[in-house]
């Protein structure tokens, strides 16, 4: 039986006086009872908007122009606002991407979840017992403690579990999960996917699973639909989609998701390990300041880290979230002062590319201003023409055009912003680029193109790259050597192939296990 039937659904967004933009174009699909349906597509393909339309959470500027959405036999679009609100929660549950912002930070987890039941007039004792048992269902060993904790006291993966518990509390028939794992590391992703699957079977739920990442649908979804430009262009069971794609776009997505160096045309610079290194990190330790007047020092977040980076080398730094990767990156580029040890930049410059393409550029300034700023900061004196020439060179090197220079970041896509951020690094001709999870918030196609760009920079300019990632596939394709971090220490290091083939540390094994389960 089908739990949801979507017929000829079209939706447009009206902005100002211009022509309305067609976001969803004649969608036709159904969701069978008890299945997990994957909805895959690049950013901007309309997959989130499909979910929002089904849940009735569209922004005011959006208008459904045609079609019908039937859930459990009722046409959702014909219901009144009140009836729809009732439907959401009782029949449809939702989980969003960002577990940081979905919980009220001022209330305990228990209070956050309690509200869902309170507005439905359920007596107090029953509410608490239901929440505790649901927290147990989503895999917490001490549900009472989690019930009393505040959102900031638990980790990202735990928060996502809490959100799943919240969505499942009312036992909805359909659970819409909009990129629930995109901000989690591989190990946590695997556990969350397993949880969703268990809940799906245990509570007879149906899941619509939205993701930009084809690698997570394997072993998880029963069927997969691929979206592009507001249309569903491919739909099949998971096996066939992954191993025998009929549509050219799906096939392309698959190869890009695999990050195969040969098909992407990646080629990296030769490394001479006998030469002098461009970056020497000697036994550094870093702690965050804590306490009144910042006098007390907390325990060291990272400790005893040593490595050398050679010219042209791409080195990977892997580990699950919270292991100190970003702290190490911040220490190397000078944002945090090490409490011990020494960092030698060997007279070269260090550039950084951060994770989030949204906040990596200042929304109030143009791209030209952004590229000029490093020159000003470094005190490089140039004439107007020389400056303009350098800026043009940098922007062309990252594959953007002159017209992008006068634009504000808000008018660029995620991939273009990440390119602009790389251009900002390149303009000072650094000898080392530290890339902190540069791909994790980009979809497969964009990530592949940024990867290609980084390999080109590495090959042509002999720039060394320290790549921080929790994605083993990226590290395997890009990096010659790899460091594995766990709890603030480097637990394993060596040539990438050797480390990943015969891992010694338990942290490495956990990462490899998680990756194997995904692909």
């Amino acid at each position, binding site marked *: 039986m089908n739990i949801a039937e979507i017929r000829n659904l079209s939706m447009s967004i009206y902005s100002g006086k211009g022509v309305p933009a067609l976001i969803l174009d004649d969608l036709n699909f159904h969701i069978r009872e008890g299945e997990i349906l994957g909805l895959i597509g690049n950013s901007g393909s309309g997959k989130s908007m499909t979910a929002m339309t089904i849940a009735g959470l569209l922004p005011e500027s959006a208008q459904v122009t045609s079609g019908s959405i039937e859930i459990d036999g009722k046409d959702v679009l014909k219901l009144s606002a009140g009836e729809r609100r009732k439907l959401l929660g009782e029949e449809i549950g939702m989980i969003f991407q960002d577990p940081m912002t979905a919980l009220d930070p001022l209330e305990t987890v228990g209070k956050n979840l309690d509200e869902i039941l309170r507005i439905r007039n359920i007596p107090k004792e029953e509410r608490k017992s239901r929440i505790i048992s649901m927290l147990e269902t989503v895999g917490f060993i001490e549900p009472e403690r989690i019930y009393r904790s505040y959102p900031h006291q638990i980790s990202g993966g735990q928060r996502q579990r809490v959100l799943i518990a919240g969505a499942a509390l009312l036992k909805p028939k359909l659970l819409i999960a909009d990129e629930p794992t995109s901000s989690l590391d591989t190990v946590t992703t695997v556990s969350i996917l397993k949880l969703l699957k268990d809940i799906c079977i245990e509570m007879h739920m149906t899941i619509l699973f939205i993701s930009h990442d084809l690698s997570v649908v394997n072993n998880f979804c029963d069927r997969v639909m691929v979206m592009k430009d507001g249309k569903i262009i491919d739909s099949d069971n998971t096996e066939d989609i992954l191993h025998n794609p009929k549509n050219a776009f799906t096939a392309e997505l698959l190869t890009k998701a695999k990050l195969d160096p040969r098909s992407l045309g990646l080629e990296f610079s030769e490394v001479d390990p006998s030469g002098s290194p461009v970056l020497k990190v000697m036994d550094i330790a870093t702690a965050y300041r804590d306490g009144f007047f*910042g006098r007390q020092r907390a325990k060291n977040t990272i400790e005893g880290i040593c490595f050398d980076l050679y010219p042209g080398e791409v080195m990977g730094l892997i580990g699950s979230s919270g292991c100190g990767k970003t702290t190490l990156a911040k220490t190397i580029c000078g*944002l945090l002062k090490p409490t011990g040890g020494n960092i030698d930049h060997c007279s070269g410059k260090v*550039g950084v590319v*951060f994770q989030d393409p949204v906040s990596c550029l200042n929304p*109030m*300034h143009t791209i030209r201003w952004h590229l000029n700023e490093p020159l*000003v900061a470094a005190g490089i004196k140039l004439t107007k023409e020389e400056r303009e020439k350098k800026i043009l060179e940098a922007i062309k090197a990252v594959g953007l055009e002159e017209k992008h220079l006068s634009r504000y970041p808000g008018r660029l896509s995620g991939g273009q912003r990440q390119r602009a951020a790389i251009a900002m690094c390149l303009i000072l001709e650094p000898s080392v680029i530290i890339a902190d999870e540069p791909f994790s918030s980009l979809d497969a196609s964009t990530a592949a193109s940024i990867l290609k760009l980084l390999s080109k920079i590495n090959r042509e300019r002999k720039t060394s790259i320290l790549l921080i990632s929790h994605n083993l596939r990226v590290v395997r394709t890009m990096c010659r050597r790899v460091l594995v971090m766990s709890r603030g220490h480097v637990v394993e290091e060596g040539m990438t192939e050797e480390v990943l083939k015969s891992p010694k540390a338990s942290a490495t094994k956990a990462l490899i296990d998680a990756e194997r389960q995904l692909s």
Partner: protein
Amino acid sequence: MRTSLQKKTRIYMAVGFSLLAVILVAFVISLTHLYVYDPNSTNAAAKLLPPSSDHLFGTDNLGRDVFARCMEASKYTLLVSFCGVFIAFVLGTLLGMPAGYFGGITDKFIMLISNSVMCFPGILLALVAVAVFGPSLFNVVWALGLVFAPTFARVYRTGVIGLSSKEYILHAKVLKVNPMRIMLLHIFPNLVPQLLPAVVIGLANMTLFESGMSYLGLGVQPPHASYGKMLADAQSYMTMAPWLIVFPALLLVIYVLGLYFLSEAARLSFGGERR
């Protein structure tokens, strides 16, 4: 749908009242010198006349035209509130930005000063300052500026702390951009949406403070007109000549209300939607 209606009404009200306030300001500035009556010239033959076509708002106990005096009062109110907010804004910038940016001891020290100023009732502090240094327009302006500075410092500090964790600010720090430059060019433009409503609210509060001080005789000094002083003087004639209280009070309310709605409009136009 309901929320959208509320939002629309809010916008209409905001636009309407701010227009009213703006018109009021324009009328004051353009007409003070053109109006037939001098705000300070007395006329013993025309005491406490009710509103008429000759004297639009009537006359007071010394035969001065209330309409002319209202215009002059508006002029001084504008002068005091704009200069005061300017001083408060500059001081707030100098205190709040470094406090938020550097954090640590700098932050603790600056916020200690600003909190100590804040924990006194503002009007009391301004009154003490004026009582000590003597009542004059200049003293009122800087005293009010000083009293209001911590409010701006707080807005700045919170904004800067919020932005400091943004990656573009981290990147600027990695590039070793001069802290002054980061604060003024990287951070400041991003704070405008929060600062603009604060400035407009500051203008409204400053107007009320100035009226309060003038009411107590420590603000704008006679013979110059001021809303507070006019209301204080009118008290004794309240039953005989209610127009002496009604018109200045009405103008003051419209002006302050207009400013509050203007700040709401500023907030809405930057997409702020917190309630």
